[in-house]
């Protein structure tokens, strides 16, 4: 009971307080690629503080407009309680994989609800793009996790990670890891797939009408998703090294998360934005490759 409570607190602290720092690191990396100095590492904290202090404008009478950012942030926080960040997830149980993926999808749905509730045409465009991308990418995320599930015959994340540590890398898991990494770019809203989020083409998309605390919650949930999804990726597909001592494991996981996020940031800096239909056909190609991975998993390779 005590370990569950302390693990839950550690997870929430990582997701709420350390997440803006990871965004700061990515911004500094982007600035280094642009040959400039960049903002200080604590700039996202200052941005969030400033936004939380601004006037809360109500653009429509629709109650969904005020509820959507809360839905997004709350579902990310709940998903953080199910994510293993170095050790077992705080509220892990048999089948927690499905609950985790559902709450991540609920976060995307929250963004869509917020964008559609204002009635602005830019919001509608952004929501359409987000829906198209979410449909393609959620399948990839689920399928790459199912590759592991087939090996272990259970939907429990803890058992999946333990089995992978013991058995070592397999071909199917490597292919699934690559597919999940490519889907990571979309989920985090980074170039070349930052299509729904903050375009220069459609002026912000679903986030255009949100200002003040609502925008702070949207941005915070995107920062928190970075740490969450990177931890999930590492725990399922790259769980080494593991010492068994809980604080050391959490620290090692944090270092690995930052390495993964630096890689994501590098890919983000050197790419232009792709059009939606190109992105959909790209992910359809990845889905075909994943089918092969599932086939390999079924024959236990």
């Amino acid at each position, binding site marked *: 009971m005590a370990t569950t409570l302390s693990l839950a607190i550690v997870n929430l602290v990582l997701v709420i307080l350390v997440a803006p720092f990871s965004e700061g690191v990515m911004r500094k990396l982007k600035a280094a690629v*642009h040959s400039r100095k960049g903002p200080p590492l604590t700039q996202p904290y200052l941005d969030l503080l400033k936004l939380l202090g601004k006037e809360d404008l109500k653009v429509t009478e629709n109650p969904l407009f005020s509820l959507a950012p809360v839905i997004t942030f709350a579902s990310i926080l709940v998903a953080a309680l199910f994510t293993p960040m170095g050790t077992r997830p705080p509220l892990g149980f048999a089948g927690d994989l499905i609950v985790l993926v559902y709450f991540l999808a609920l976060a995307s749905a929250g963004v869509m609800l917020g964008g559609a509730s204002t009635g602005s045409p830019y919001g509608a465009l952004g929501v359409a793009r987000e829906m198209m991308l979410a449909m393609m990418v959620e399948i990839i995320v689920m399928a790459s996790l199912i590759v592991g599930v087939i090996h272990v015959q259970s939907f429990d994340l803890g058992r999946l990670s333990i089995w992978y540590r013991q058995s070592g890398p397999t071909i199917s898991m490597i292919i699934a890891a690559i597919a999940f990494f490519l889907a990571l770019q979309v989920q985090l809203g980074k170039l070349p797939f930052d299509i729904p989020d903050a375009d220069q083409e459609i002026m912000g998309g679903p986030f255009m009408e949100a200002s003040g605390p609502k925008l702070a919650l949207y941005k915070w949930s995107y920062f928190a998703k970075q740490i969450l999804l990177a931890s999930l990726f590492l725990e399922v597909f790259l769980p080494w090294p593991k010492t068994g001592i809980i604080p050391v494991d959490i620290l090692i996981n944090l270092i690995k998360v930052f390495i993964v996020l630096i890689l994501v940031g590098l890919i983000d*800096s050197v790419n232009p934005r792709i*059009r939606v239909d190109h992105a959909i056909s790209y992910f359809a190609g990845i889905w075909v490759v994943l089918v092969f991975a599932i086939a390999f998993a079924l024959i236990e390779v």
Partner: protein
Amino acid sequence: MLGFDTVLMQTWRIREPVMWLFEQITGNRKTFGMNLIGGVRRDITPELKTKILEVVDTVEKEWLKVIDAISGDTPLMLRLKGVGVLKHEDAVDYCVTGPTARGSGVGIDSRVDHPYAAYEYLFPEKKVQEGCDILARTLVRLEETLESIRLVRKCLKQIPNGPIMADIPSEIPPGREGVKAVEAPRGESIHYVLTGENNRPYRWRVRAPSYMNLASVPVMIRGVELADVPIAIASYDPCFSCTERLEVVNFKSGEVRIYTRKELHELSRKKRDR
């Protein structure tokens, strides 16, 4: 537009020594103010000449590296190839000029067709591409940069000694007209001057190239995805202030009023005196 900030920042980094060089030669980075009636205001000293050649060498080296790096970039080519197509017949019908026309296979360049200044001694080449899409226009501009570097080197080698201002009569007769087409970076720009008394122009009218190129946009964006519209509009390099016509539309009464030159003049005088 594409979200490709990296190439933007790097090309501006390469461009910065050129801006410093302009400041050394003319006194300002963008608003040169070098031309007078009959000549230019300042001369190029020998130190400036060596500096110009150095800067031009560095820019050419880095520019070739950038072109080499982005020509194999698949996401960029996916966005640019086959998008914003302006066919050859449409380009001729809508009378587009500059890189917009040269990217669609129409070979017009005012430096070669109507030479002015020193261009009859320099023989610039026309850079024409047949692609008719955004990639073709971008390639035209990239190649023209290299061509300009070649022209600068040739110019500095061939320039003769002599005065920088011609001998012109101190009284310019009023009531005379002058028309000339020059090549601006966006296309062909036509200047018309009507002289007045007291050595001042009575009327000076510029027909900027963006005025013609803007008319071709509806043809370029017919039936394409929404994401292609901003980059198609940006590809012909619009200067929206050159297409200026101030129309004030009153929604309630439905009347349309165009401001005359005198009214605009009065409005800006009132704002200055505030």
